[in-house]
Structure formats: C-alpha cells, structure tokens
C-alpha cells in the first residue's frame, strides 16, 4: 500500500468526515486518493484561516473536520486558532506538510519552516510528527486526543514519510 493510501486509510478510520484543503506538492498524492475514493467530503478552500472557520462551523453542525495544508498556512490561521477554536473549545485537526525543513530546495520556505514546531508549542497545540510510515497509526491517537480535549491538534507530515530526501518531493 502506498504511503498516501496508508495516510488516507488512517484518516478515514478516525471518523474524520470533512476535509478542507489548501494544496501543497507534498500533499498531491493524498489529495488524489481523497478525490478518487469520494468517501470523505472534501472541499478546497482559498486560505487556511477560511478553512478554520468552515471547520468550526461544521463541528457545530456535528461533523469531525480536518484541514490539510502546508505549514505556511499555520501563520495564516493563528488568530482563528486562538480566538475561535480555543475560545469556544472546538477541536480541529490540522494535517500539515512540513516545508522549509530537511530536504527543502526552495529558500522561501525556510523562514516559516524553521519556526513551525516552536510556533505550535507557543500556541499550545499538541503536535504529532510523522516521519516514517510506521508512525501513521499515530493519527488515530492524535484525533482521539483532539476529541477528548476539545482542542486543536497538529499532525506534521515530514518529507521522510514518503522516502529518502533525494526523491522528487
């Protein structure tokens, strides 16, 4: 089974039933699986902060939403994470590709990529780092924690999840 399919199956198993996305090249394969399977409602959004709003509304209406995005989108979402999700105690799952870290070829990704983990700590968002296919099962633990604590959580997808750093993504 491909890494993208494994990620998809783990996401499905958690009961996540709404996926909002802003694309990243690292998420290309996973987004294709989501579109192919058509089992989980998927809506493309224009900006990550907008996704936080939609996720919050969907949670109020009984859904379990997650946002697929690049870590740069964390910066776009900070006020909504604090003054919407934290204020009202709404759990939203952030599944984030980690650009600007090991193996990155685009310089512009570095400034945000290098502070991402510290930023999540500062935001008091519990973070699960997936750096090899063996960690994918942690998605289930992470989502359970979000549901129990009613707090947002972050699942970081590292480049090494898909193989060696020299490969295309």
């Amino acid at each position: 089974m491909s890494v993208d399919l494994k990620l998809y199956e783990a996401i499905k198993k958690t009961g996540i039933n709404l996926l909002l996305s802003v694309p990243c090249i690292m998420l290309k394969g996973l987004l294709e699986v989501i579109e192919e399977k058509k089992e989980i409602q998927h809506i493309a959004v224009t900006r990550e902060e907008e996704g936080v709003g939609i996720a919050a509304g969907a949670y109020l209406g009984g859904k379990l939403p997650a946002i697929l995005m690049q870590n740069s989108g964390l910066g776009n979402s900070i006020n909504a994470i604090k003054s919407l999700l934290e204020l009202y105690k709404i759990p939203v799952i952030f599944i984030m590709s980690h650009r600007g870290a090991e193996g990155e070829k685009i310089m512009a990704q570095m400034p945000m990529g290098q502070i991402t983990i510290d930023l999540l700590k500062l935001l008091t968002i519990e973070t699960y780092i997936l750096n090899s296919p063996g960690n994918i099962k942690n998605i289930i633990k992470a989502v359970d924690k979000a549901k129990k604590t009613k707090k947002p959580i972050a699942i970081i997808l590292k480049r090494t999840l898909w193989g060696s750093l020299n490969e295309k993504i």
Partner: protein
Amino acid sequence: MRRYEALEEITEILTDELVVCNLGDPSRELYNIKDRLENFYMMGSMGLSSSIAFGLAISQPKRKVWCIDGDGSILMNLGSLSTIANNVPSNLTLIIVDNGSYGSTGDQLTYTHGKTKLEIIAQGAGFESISVIKNKSEISPILKNLGWRCHLVLIKTMPGSEKVENIPLLPEDIKERFMDLILK
C-alpha cells in the same frame, strides 16, 4: 436605515433558522433585540462569519442557515465568497449589512464607502441569487420569499451602532447551547 433597525426586521422574520452573527456590535445588538438558542454569536476571529455559516450549512443540509455578516468583515475574507458560490449550499443565505464602516472600532470608513461594490464582487465570485436592499420595507418581503437556494442579500445601512450591553454568555456556553439544540 440603521443596522439595528435592519436586525430588528430580520429578527421579526426568523422562525427556526440557524443564525451565525458577526462579532462586536452586530452580535450585541442581535442579542439585545432577541436572544435565541438558534443564534451563534461570534466573539473573535473577525472575517470568518461567512465561513462558519458555510461549514454549518454543509453539515446541516436540512436546516436553513442565515449568516449576518458585515462589510468590513467580508472584505477580510473575500475568498469565502468564491468557496460558497462554487459549492452552492442551497440552505445558506449570506446577509451582509453594509454600513460602509468598521462600527465596533469607532466608525472608521471601509472601502465600500468608496468605490467597492460588494454585489459586483459577489457576482464575480459566482453567486447567482443576489438582492440589494436599501429600504427597510424591502427586508421582510425579500427574506420571507427566499427558497432553497444559495443567496446573498446585501442590506445598505447608515453607519452607527446602538448602545447595548455586552453579551453575558461565555463563548463555551454559546457553543454548548447551540450544539445541544442542533444535535439533540
């Protein structure tokens, strides 16, 4: 017409619609006119009321959802108009009360006071049902006759807020009572 009067008219028409209301003075005024369990009052995250309402609408497709947004707020999140117009939730009505100013922060002017026309932006985003209301007497006939379609209703008002108290509810309480009502 002032926003408070527009909100009074809207409240008169409401039956069991779920309402997501923009933060600051609009939410305080709406609470003051008539509190309802079906109202979700925003207290932070300016700009996101249309997104919250859209998320609610797609997760509760059998219930009508009305969003009361403002010009300053929607200008912060114009991408939301594209997302809503392309996904076309037939149970969502986005009401934008356009008073051309940031009312909760001291009536600084927004660009809708100048050249910007939200109805044209909405049309460009893909909305197919758009109403522009300038007189109070038009609110009731238009809002009462909304069918199951994705609508955008722009209500042009004068700037200015009513002096009302803060909402004496905790954010978590607003959420809990709203979710209890929907998911019971």
